[in-house]
């Protein structure tokens, strides 16, 4: 599926600045590059701009300045580029955001039909395949309100995967879940990483970060404070601020 001649960097974000009225500098000259197949975990205190960064990556939020290139496509004012990038970038939200008026199968099939132009039968076939992958094939006819949080989030992951994205963004995908359901969602994410999906994951699950990620990035006040391989990041953090943060959450 790789595009020819795009090199190994699938996400190139350079010098992103995003301010909100306040004024809050949610992103302050933020730069990061993600390699194809890499799993990048972003950690940081509340309000540090993690969600804002993810939302800028698929154009839900517009940056004030800086450039974002996803798989060779620049995210700019061009509406076509924005739509194309959204098709290539899947997103999973903390609050699931399933469509409550559609059943599980329709949730997963909707975008395949509307955006990819698939027939009902072909969309259904692929949706069932994905639901089986997240272990919910038997829930195809259920409505979101009839599912547990963990099940809803797995449906949301299947829904994002249905677009066959090249990159998946996870914004605290397990934060709204009861503890006993976190595992089932992390398992799906782990499997995805093993299958070679490029992932940018905002999470407080340090175990997951240590075990699954290729790189951990610590951000604060819209800036990169420190990044590195997980063992090095957790065992021998270079910056005092990082050590303080890790002491707080571990």
């Amino acid at each position, binding site marked *: 599926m790789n595009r020819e001649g795009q090199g190994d960097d699938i996400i190139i974000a350079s010098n992103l600045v995003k301010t909100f009225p306040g004024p809050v500098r949610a992103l302050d000259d933020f730069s990061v590059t993600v390699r194809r197949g890499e799993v990048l975990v972003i950690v940081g205190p509340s309000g540090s701009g993690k969600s804002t960064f993810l939302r800028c990556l698929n154009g839900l939020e517009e940056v004030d300045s800086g450039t974002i290139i996803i798989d060779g496509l620049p995210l700019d004012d061009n509406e076509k580029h924005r739509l194309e990038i959204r098709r290539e970038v899947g997103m999973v*939200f903390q609050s699931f955001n399933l469509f409550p008026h559609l059943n599980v199968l329709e949730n997963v099939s909707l*975008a395949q039909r509307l955006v990819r132009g698939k027939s009902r039968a072909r969309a259904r076939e692929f949706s069932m395949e994905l639901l089986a992958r997240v272990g919910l094939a038997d829930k195809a006819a259920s409505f979101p309100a009839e599912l547990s949080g963990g099940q809803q989030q797995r449906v949301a992951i299947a829904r994002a995967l249905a677009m066959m994205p090249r990159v998946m963004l996870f914004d605290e995908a397990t934060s709204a879940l009861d503890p006993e359901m976190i595992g089932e969602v992390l398992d799906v994410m782990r499997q995805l990483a093993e299958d070679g999906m490029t992932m940018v994951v905002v999470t407080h699950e340090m175990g997951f970060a240590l075990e699954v990620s290729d790189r951990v990035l610590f951000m604060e006040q819209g800036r990169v404070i420190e990044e590195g391989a997980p063992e090095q990041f957790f065992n021998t953090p270079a910056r005092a601020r990082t050590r303080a943060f890790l002491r707080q959450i571990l």
Partner: protein
Amino acid sequence: MIRTRRTSLSLDLALLALLACLVGFIAYRITVHLDYAWHWGEIPQYILRHDDRTGRWVPNYLLRGLFTTLRLSLWGGLLALALGLAMALARTGRSLYWRLIARTYVLLLRNLPPLVIIFLFYFFLADQLIPHLALDVRARKAGPGVRWLLSLLVAEPGSISAFLSAVCTLALFEGAYITEILRAGIESVERGQWEAAHALGLRRHQVLRHVVLPQAFRQVLPTLAGQFISLVKDSSIVSVISIQELTYQGSQLMASTYLTIEVWVTVALMYMLLTFPCSLLVARLEARLARRHGGDGHDWGCLCRGEEVL
């Protein structure tokens, strides 16, 4: 819980007894003191009349009025819904220009008395716009099949222009309320729904069509149905521009027969015939929605007409 039930039950009984006394008193006054000659027997012939020439029963003034009211309400309701949807989309849309237009529309129409709106728009539409379409002439020239269909669904060929003007004015007036109802519905859909749909690559119109509007409509369906009942009732104001709907027929009949009370009681019952099934439907819908949302206090009240501030 049970305690409050009890007290409200005894209160209900007391109120019921009071009401019974009141009704009894009024009945007593009417039978003993009111010098009114009852002629209920004359009313049925104004509903259905036996045509001696064809030997068939045909609808007379009141029933024809009821049908006209029904047609007015259905077409007016449909048109108002279309207008309301367009304006609600404009009102919640991205274009400042359209937002202003929709806002002005709602502001104007909700701050004028319905009668004034009716007169203004009726005389504007009827005098300036609709005659140019020469609908009546065309309808008269049409084949018998088309004419029959027209008088079944719209109005007698001679009064199509007037009927159309009335439908437009009603729709314009009710559309303003429907705009606000639908706007509230659209705004009640969480931002996360927009974001999830956008993140999947859906375009704005697809998000609206497949994600936001279905949820918005579901949310405001009871309110919308309630507004339709209002429309049935409000349709009586077009009697002032001589549309021969139920209220108009009632007043004509009263003037010619002096059966004042009988006529209006009959008219009231006929309106109930239209609105009561709608009310039952609304109650059903509300109960069903309350069950679906676990009765978590959806505040329909704030969605009702006139409550939403601009």
